[in-house]
């Protein structure tokens, strides 16, 4: 039986067949002709086998952050979406509801400007803007430094608003407890299939701007089905950040996580 949809086993075999795990094809796509051959031959060349993940540097910083967050009881969410899905609005409205319940801090990632950090500061909560310049994602090293600069309090909620981009931020662990992907109904219900990596990496999908559902062609059920195909265990919330529809479902979720 599938634990996601509760379906019964259609084939009834339940057998685990082991298939050759790595059908490896080797292909060389890049070769240099060394102009001078002085180091291409001989002199004690050796082949070494390693296992070095390309993201290992970032992952090491993320692990440090995660340990720091755990020791200081800081609950951290990493919000990702396309530009304009409503992350900053969601955070501003969340802060208005929750700021008397526990300390909140925000790290804002954008390629340029302080605009979003200013919107957060207007609520009375401290915010730090990271301008990533040419880079299209936040990385764990930058977050570690930002947390020190911001002096994030113990027992607090730290929200990280990532750069608006549904591609790279999926690969860069920041040390957060959960990635939350925000999808607004004006973007189309097939986003989970168009950008599967992000929906695979996220633990929660927030479908935002549901107040606009009457005006757009967005099939909520279809969207949920697509998201679950990519990530069978993804949790889903539907709300409007500006009209506060279903908003307490989200804030209740957060409050429960803070306990």
């Amino acid at each position, binding site marked *: 039986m*599938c634990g996601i949809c509760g379906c019964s*086993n259609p084939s009834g075999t339940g057998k685990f067949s082991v298939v050759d795990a790595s059908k490896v094809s080797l*292909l060389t796509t*890049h070769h240099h002709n060394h102009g001078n051959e002085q180091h291409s031959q001989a002199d004690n060349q050796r082949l070494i086998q390693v296992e070095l993940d390309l*993201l290992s540097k970032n992952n090491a910083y993320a692990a440090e952050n995660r340990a720091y967050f755990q020791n200081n009881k800081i609950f951290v969410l990493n919000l990702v979406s396309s530009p304009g899905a409503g992350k900053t609005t969601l955070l501003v409205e969340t802060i208005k509801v929750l700021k008397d319940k526990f300390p909140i801090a925000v790290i804002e990632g954008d390629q340029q400007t302080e605009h979003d950090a200013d919107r957060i500061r207007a609520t009375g909560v401290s915010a730090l803007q990271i301008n990533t310049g040419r880079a299209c994602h936040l990385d764990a090293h930058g977050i570690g430094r930002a947390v020190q600069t911001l002096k994030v309090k113990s027992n607090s909620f730290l929200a990280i608003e990532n750069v608006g981009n549904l*591609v790279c931020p999926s690969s860069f662990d920041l040390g957060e407890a959960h990635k939350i992907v925000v999808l607004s109904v004006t973007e189309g219900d097939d986003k989970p299939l168009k950008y599967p990596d992000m929906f695979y990496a996220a633990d929660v999908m927030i479908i935002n701007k549901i107040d606009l559902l009457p005006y757009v062609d967005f099939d909520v059920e279809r969207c949920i*089905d697509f998201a679950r195909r990519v990530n069978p265990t993804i949790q889903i919330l539907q709300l409007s950040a500006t009209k506060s529809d279903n908003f307490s479902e989200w804030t209740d979720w957060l409050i429960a996580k803070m306990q």
Partner: protein
Amino acid sequence: MHELSLLENVRVILEDHAKKQNFQRVEEITLEIGALSCVETEALAFAFEAVMKGSLAENAQLRFKHIDAQGRCLSCGQLTVMEMLYDACEHCGHPHVDVVSGLEMKITELKVS
């Protein structure tokens, strides 16, 4: 895309590793890339030379080992080939599949001197 930052990581990883394993130059790097990892090998190859310039891997040859992706069907429990993260089970058509392999992005072999 983030191929540039990945390559900058490769450079740093190689420099760290050179100290540990005591080598001065890298002649050849083999990267294992899973079919579901979100990197373009062409983009990596394209930026490789520029990023490695001035490092111990300047002029190194870059090779890729492609790893096919497989998932385990949450309904029938069999292994199934995946080309996309959302592929259904090839045996029973069930839409819910857990990825088992294919997300790899790592350096697996170095020819050094």
